[in-house]
């Protein structure tokens, strides 16, 4: 079983990202479970959402403590929250930032950064980075394919909004594919 923890701020779509990644992974043939950290839903406050991926039905109901993967939607969170907490060697952290991240990275954890805010501003016209980071997650981890993410997006959104989000996901996917392969 693999586990993903998404860090974001209320309003950035962390819970939606967890749901869409779960839908895509399920379509890709995995058993999944996605859920939010319960109770904190204020806009701007630090929030978390989780996804479990498994070859078997997921029975475990505890929160995620030792994630294999972490997505950080807002690098300003790193000052307030230990986003790397519980990560093990071999883990992958995907962080939305323009600057390199060096401090606080546990031994053996691979950090991959992407400027998801700029991508989202250019494609959506809004600094909502969840769908960009989904694309980056797919490229960096291979846990979901780009195609299943597109299906999940089409299932959730319609019309122009779907197409814009697919473009956001695609750009981040392609950028991260190069980056993850190169570093």
């Amino acid at each position, binding site marked *: 079983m693999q586990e993903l923890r998404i860090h974001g701020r209320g309003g950035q779509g962390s819970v939606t990202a*967890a*749901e869409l990644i*779960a*839908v895509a992974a*399920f379509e890709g043939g995995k*058993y*999944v*479970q*996605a*859920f*939010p950290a*319960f*109770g904190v839903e204020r806009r701007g406050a630090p929030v978390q959402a989780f996804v479990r991926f498994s070859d078997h*039905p*997921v*029975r*475990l*109901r*505890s*929160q995620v*403590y030792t994630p294999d993967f972490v997505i950080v939607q807002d690098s300003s969170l790193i000052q307030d929250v230990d986003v790397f907490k519980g990560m093990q060697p071999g883990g992958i952290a995907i962080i939305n930032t323009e600057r390199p991240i060096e401090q606080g990275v546990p031994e053996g954890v691979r950090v991959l950064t992407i400027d998801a805010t700029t991508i989202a501003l250019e494609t959506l016209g809004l600094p909502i980075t969840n769908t960009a980071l989904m694309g980056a997650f797919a490229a960096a981890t291979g846990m979901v394919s780009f195609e299943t993410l597109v299906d999940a997006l089409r299932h959730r959104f319609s019309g122009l909004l779907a197409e814009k989000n697919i473009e956001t996901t695609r750009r981040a996917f392609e950028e991260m594919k190069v980056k993850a392969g190169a570093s």
Partner: protein
Amino acid sequence: MALEIMEGSIAIAQAVRRCRPQVVSAYPITPQTHIVESLAEIVANGELAADYITVESEFSALSACVGAVATGARAYSATTSQGLALMFEVCFNMAGMRLPLVMTIANRALGAPLSIWNDQQDSIALRDAGWLQLYAEDNQEAVDLHYIGYRVAEDHRVLLPTMVCFDGFILSHTYEPVDMLSQEEVDAYLPPFVPKYRLDAANPVSMGMYATPDYYLEFRYENDQAQKRALEVVREAGREFGKLFGRDYSDLVESYRMEDAETAIVAMGSICGTTKDAIDEMRAEGKKVGLVRIRCFRPFPAEDLKAALANVSRIAVLDKNISLGAGGATPRGAVALELKDALYGTSTPVLDYIIALGGRDVRIEDIKNVVAACEAGDGDRFYGLRTEVL
């Protein structure tokens, strides 16, 4: 079987739609809200031919259901925690008037102090109200228990309202795969409601009259007899469901890896999923541990539990509720209290652990710690108490 992935609350709303209630009345409250929001949409979209009665409180929501079922309609409601507490009076009336209903409880702690998080104190507090109570481990079971719930509640041997309890947030807000039966499949399993008595101007009857001391005791006897008959009706309905759809719910208690188990855990609801994972790990380490999960708490399956636990050396109960003041010098939850009653006369020690109240997370390690404590004879206590903040 075609699995789909969706949020637990949405799956419940979809299951309720397939049960074809003619009246839905509910008042939104966290973490039940997504269920009734979704149903309001389903009704507004014309996907369910029901009257959706919006009300100003849970008291009114359940009262509207009482009226609806009294006229012979199938009705539905959902609530949790303080909302269920506000329904207290109506709950007793509904069972006493023998009006069948299915109401979803997205289990949540009761205030004060205010908590929106999960435990099972809310439905447990209503265990004497005369309703049937079924507890789900996962969203698939939560969905299926709605179909089974209506079938049992409306059975003329029972005619009692039913709470389908699933853990708030932990299940209600979780996306996971569920197999949603088609409308045709549900129709084949769940026939339309045929009331035994109903309010009808052409054939007037009175319901909910007062009973003098000459009759009240007999009403209560009848009510209890209906609960007792429900033991077999739940088994039948669960067996029939299994025959049609492959998921058998005929057991009122589920035994997991109980063959040769020396220590048994007894619990209800979603904590049992984590417990099963913990048991697999402990079994791999050579520990003889099993789980007996109570699916049906009302009626209480005393004989089933006695049989399931006949050969164990010790029992650890995980109680996500507490009966404040019970147990003498040590704390006690409802599951342990009732289990001890069922096992009276046997010598198996039953140790109770008050756990996971108000949303405190439970990990695999916690279950292992409980088993180790039980083996050492250390129980009848709160688990995970943070003594530093007392």
